[in-house]
């Protein structure tokens, strides 16, 4: 074989080995920095003396400009770059810069392309993990504050918790609780987290027009953001800038239908507060409002208020425990009816097209055709939808159109209060009675609407969390499948072709002994590389699973297991891809752990599938003592199973073997069975 072909062959082997090393880092989900360092090191090594760098491309820049700039910075006029594409947009580029004049080696662009795909996989994986962490944090924070409200903690204690959590979730250190008196137009600083740096000390007062973030909040009753304080009038704004603060978001605390005050959060001068900050702050102000009205109810009208306070606390407890929405809707209806002394309370969802759905009621939901508002309730709910505020209808005679709709079954008096979620009208609580309802019904209903709003926010956050986890698991599987596919179609085919060409050459020409011996070495090297890639590839992704389903794949796992396996998995139908993948990996990991640690004589694997779901149990008779974490690989399974809305249990008492059980629902969406939100 000519010398240059041998050179090419070794170059190809080196390249594929380098790609494989980086692919393993990506598949093990090491930090992005480590993947980048590896890509730069391996790629630079391959195309030396040219060097490789990773460049981030911001909006507005383009690939060619970036490459030209990097060439200039390196003092050369020869550079080649390929884009790193993440989620369909160009995130950055892999740029190779040559110190010598003349073009880069042939094939450099293709090689860079392979590395850029691996870099893109690493970035996508990190982005997904960060999104998940942020959602989980927010979820936890809301739950902690709701618990304080449920325990009837003093407003100050609740505010301290809100300030701490807001600081964590929004990433701001400075949070203020501000009271607003509508009659006098004066703002009072109740408490702030930033001590001497505050623009106004605790207890200080200033008029509304001097409070830039308060003005829009009071005017609209909605959260607001102020980005640039430098040209705003008044002493408060001036001190804000002096003390080195920057962007601010604020959300109103609405108690008894009026703006009681606001919570403001401030970033540092050069900090950017991400979009959506004001909405997340509003989640906390809902709970703050409940705490304040709990306290006010306690202070003002002891008897009646205590009853209401207790009712609110019971619902707040359900919210804090993250009870299912249907439980909360019915609880709210029941508690409100008792607290207000009325017989009929309905909680409903309002859609943008004007339609309404009944979600909870003192009348019970009964048959599906009874899932509708009463005609009177519908009238007042429509009024609430139109105005966005609480509404009341007592004088039906003045509304002939409504009377016609309501007919003789109408109630004499109806009051509705809006449930606001994320600043928009989400639903309504409607109270109905034959006698005219008391004047304070609207304001007292508002407390209950806060709690429903908090519960809905929780559910949204929780659904986002589950969907995010599922997305991460899927994305990770996608990456592994893609790497496996690339290895199979690319590397492995090429090396096989090389091996066959080598064999052909040896048949065709009589060769001197030293050359023959050299080729024998090459042939052995090729074989061993192929074997390594085969073993690595098999661990990445089960190719049999997608083609033939669980039956054949589990039989293959059982056959390859060093510890004998008793497999009971007859008659499992094809299931959705995420479910089949989860079942496969649970059993594969359980068998791998048993082989490594258990010293068992047998592992039994049972898979049962019915309309409710699929249940998998693996049990070995080994030494037990397995735990999540500690390198057992089991923690990844928990993520996978819970991301699909399933549950996972591990029993591994020392000396008594290890049993893993999982159950997975079969619906493709884990939120299928929830109440409509």
């Amino acid at each position, binding site marked *: 074989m000519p010398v240059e072909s041998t050179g090419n062959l070794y170059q190809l082997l080196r390249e594929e080995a380098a790609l494989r090393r980086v692919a393993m880092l990506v598949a093990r989900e090491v930090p992005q920095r480590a993947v980048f360092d590896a890509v730069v090191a391996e790629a630079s090594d391959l195309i030396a003396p040219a060097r490789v760098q990773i460049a981030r491309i911001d909006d507005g820049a383009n690939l060619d400009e970036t490459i030209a700039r990097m060439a200039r910075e390196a003092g050369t006029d020869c550079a080649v770059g390929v884009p790193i594409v993440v989620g369909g947009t160009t995130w950055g580029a892999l740029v190779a810069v040559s110190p010598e004049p003349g073009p880069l080696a042939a094939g450099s662009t293709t090689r860079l392309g392979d590395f850029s795909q691996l870099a893109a996989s690493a970035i996508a994986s990190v982005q997904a993990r960060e999104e998940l962490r942020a959602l989980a944090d927010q979820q936890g924070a809301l739950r902690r504050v709701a618990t304080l409200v449920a325990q009837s903690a003093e407003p100050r204690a609740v505010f301290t918790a809100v300030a701490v959590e807001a600081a964590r979730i929004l990433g701001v250190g400075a949070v203020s609780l501000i009271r607003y008196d509508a009659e006098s137009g004066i703002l009072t600083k109740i408490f702030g987290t930033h001590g001497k740096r505050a623009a106004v000390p605790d207890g200080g007062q200033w008029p509304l027009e001097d409070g830039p973030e308060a003005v829009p909040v009071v005017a609209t009753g909605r959260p607001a953001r102020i980005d640039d304080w430098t040209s705003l009038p008044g002493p408060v704004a001036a001190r804000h800038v002096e003390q080195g603060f920057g962007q601010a978001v604020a959300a109103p605390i609405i108690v008894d239908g009026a703006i009681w005050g606001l919570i403001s959060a401030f970033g540092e001068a050069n900090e950017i507060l991400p979009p959506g900050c004001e909405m997340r702050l509003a989640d906390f102000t809902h709970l703050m409002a409940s705490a304040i009205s709990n306290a006010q109810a306690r202070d003002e009208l002891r008897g009646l208020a205590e009853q209401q306070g207790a009712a609110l606390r019971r619902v707040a407890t359900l919210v804090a425990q993250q009870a299912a929405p249907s439980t909360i809707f019915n609880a709210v209806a029941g508690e409100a009816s008792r607290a207000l002394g009325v017989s009929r309370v309905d909680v409903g969802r309002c859609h943008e097209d004007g339609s309404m759905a009944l979600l909870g009621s003192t009348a019970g939901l009964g048959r599906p055709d009874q899932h509708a508002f009463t005609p009177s309730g519908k009238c007042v709910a429509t009024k609430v939808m139109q105005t966005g505020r609480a509404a009341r209808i007592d004088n039906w005679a003045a509304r002939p159109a409504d009377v016609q709709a309501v007919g003789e079954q109408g109630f004499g008096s109806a009051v509705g209060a809006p449930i606001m979620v994320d600043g928009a009208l989400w639903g309504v609580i409607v109270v109905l009675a034959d006698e005219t309802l008391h004047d304070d019904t609207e304001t007292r209903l508002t407390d209950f609407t806060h709690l429903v709003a908090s519960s809905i926010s929780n559910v949204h956050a929780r659904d986002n969390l589950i969907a995010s986890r599922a997305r991460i698991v899927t994305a990770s599987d996608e990456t592994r499948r893609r790497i496996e596919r690339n290895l*199979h*179609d690319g590397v*492995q*085919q*090429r*090396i*096989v*072709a*090389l*091996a*066959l*060409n080598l*064999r*052909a050459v040896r*048949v*065709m020409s009589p060769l001197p002994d030293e050359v023959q011996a050299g080729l024998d070495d090459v042939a052995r090297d*090729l*074989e061993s590389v*192929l074997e390594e890639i*085969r073993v690595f*590839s*098999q661990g990445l992704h089960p*190719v*049999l699973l997608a*083609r*033939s389903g669980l039956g*054949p*794949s589990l*039989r*293959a796992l059982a*056959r*390859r297991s060093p510890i004998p396996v008793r497999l009971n998995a007859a008659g499992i139908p094809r299931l959705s891809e995420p479910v089949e993948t989860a079942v496969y990996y649970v059993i594969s990991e359980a068998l791998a752990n048993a082989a490594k640690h258990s010293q068992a004589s047998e592992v039994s694997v049972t898979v049962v599938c019915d309309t409710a779901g699929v249940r998998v149990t693996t049990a070995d008779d080994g030494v037990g003592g397995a735990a999540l974490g500690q390198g057992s690989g089991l923690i990844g399974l928990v993520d996978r199973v819970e991301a699909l809305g399933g549950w996972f249990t591990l029993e591994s008492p020392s000396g008594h073997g290890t049993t893993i059980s999982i159950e997975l629902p079969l619906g493709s969406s884990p939120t299928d069975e929830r109440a409509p939100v």
Partner: protein
Amino acid sequence: MNLSCLIVDDSEEFLASAARLLSVQGVTVVGRTSSGDEALRLAEALSPDVALVDVELGDEDGIDLARRLASAGSSATVILISVRDRNELSELMAGSGAAGFLRKDALDAQAVMDLILARKQADLGPGPPHAG
């Protein structure tokens, strides 16, 4: 020996190197294709002695093609090939009717010959006892 051989694989590179190797080892490669339908057509038109079929033919299924070749009455002995190990694929290949399996990097005219002979002997049955 002058075996005639049809190669069915979705990798152009493999088709080229396999054809080259088998040719220099004395096998006549009468056709190469990546398409299952084309494979059936070539098998019927050219009646090769053996057909090497990749288990994973891109979007198509090599096992399925193996069965279709048999039910189309092709006289070709079908050998399944793959870059993967037999270990990974045995459950998949069961019931395909193929004469055997060769890992692609072990491709060799002699190995192909051995599998064909083994299948022919199996087809003929145990036979009468040999003298001596």
